[in-house]
């Protein structure tokens, strides 16, 4: 075992003294909540952050396209804001997840790796398909408006909903289904409004999900 050179330290009162059942229940509850919070790879803080990021990223794009007639697509500045906020958030996610899962090995470590690969492929396919739409001569409204705004929610959200339902994690499956519905409905609002509708809708969804998790883990 690590730290074997410390084995001669005294163990406080052998076993820590008498433990009243009420104290035991309180200690058990406190320890379980604390452990779940520290081992949680999706802490509420991450989702509060995500709600802010999506509001800023999609909101910036919406501001750049809202008066375009005909629709040309987001300006380079808006795209820079979109991608840099998403990249910053992705870095933050990696740091938080690494901290939560540090020291954990076993079945879920393998599962997380496979999960990561599968979702990276699904994300990549979203943009490969966008290239196909452009190649086929689809309009700017589709290729640089409706599709890039709503397809990530519909495609990645659909994959996530199926995965979470298979794991019988109904909280996450429900959240993913809500994202799919938001993406599909927002697509009807047009190439400019879709950015604003998804920006606000997804931010509300994430905020609500973070609030629910905070309440459940309080």
């Amino acid at each position, binding site marked *: 075992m690590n730290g074997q050179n410390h084995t001669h*330290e*005294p163990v406080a009162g052998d076993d*820590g003294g008498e433990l009243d059942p009420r104290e*035991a229940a309180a200690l058990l509850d406190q320890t*379980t909540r604390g452990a779940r919070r520290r081992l949680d790879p999706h802490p509420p803080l991450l989702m509060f952050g995500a709600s802010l990021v999506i509001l800023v990223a999609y909101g910036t794009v919406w501001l750049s396209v809202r008066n375009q007639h005909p629709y040309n697509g987001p300006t380079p500045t808006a795209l820079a804001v979109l991608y840099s906020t998403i990249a910053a958030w992705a870095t933050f996610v990696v740091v938080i997840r690494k901290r939560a899962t*540090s*020291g*954990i090995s076993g079945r*879920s470590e393998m599962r997380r790796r496979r999960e990561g690969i599968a979702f990276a492929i699904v994300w990549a396919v979203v943009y490969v398909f966008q290239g196909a739409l452009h190649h086929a001569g689809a309009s700017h409204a589709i290729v640089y408006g409706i599709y890039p705004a709503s397809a990530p929610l519909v495609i990645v959200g659909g994959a996530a909903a199926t995965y979470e339902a298979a794991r019988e994690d109904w909280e996450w499956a429900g959240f993913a289904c809500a994202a799919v519905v938001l993406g599909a409905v927002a697509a009807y609002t047009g190439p400019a409004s879709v950015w604003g509708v998804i920006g606000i809708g997804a931010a509300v969804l994430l905020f609500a999900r973070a609030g629910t998790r905070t309440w459940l883990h309080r």
Partner: protein
Amino acid sequence: MAAPLSAQELDPLIHVPARLRIVATLAALPDGDALSFPRLQDMIGLTPGNLITHLRKLEEAGYVDTEKTGNGSASRTSIALTRAGRSAFETYTEALRGLLGGL
């Protein structure tokens, strides 16, 4: 009607503050996962010596399984709750719940 439980009926191996915290922390992991010694120590807040002593008692009872990989400074010890340990923890929490309901 079943006789009310007494505190003596709680598993004495778990019904100790330090070991209760160790077992509850390991039970928070998904089945089949293990926690490294330093992470467990960080989460429990015990000295390495105390943690080792309590882990030995739990290991002797078959409640936890420790696995050492690597050698020297690169060695790493992982601790997991065994099936028997998880079952004992569930029995303990049920007994505790029953006891408090009866108080």
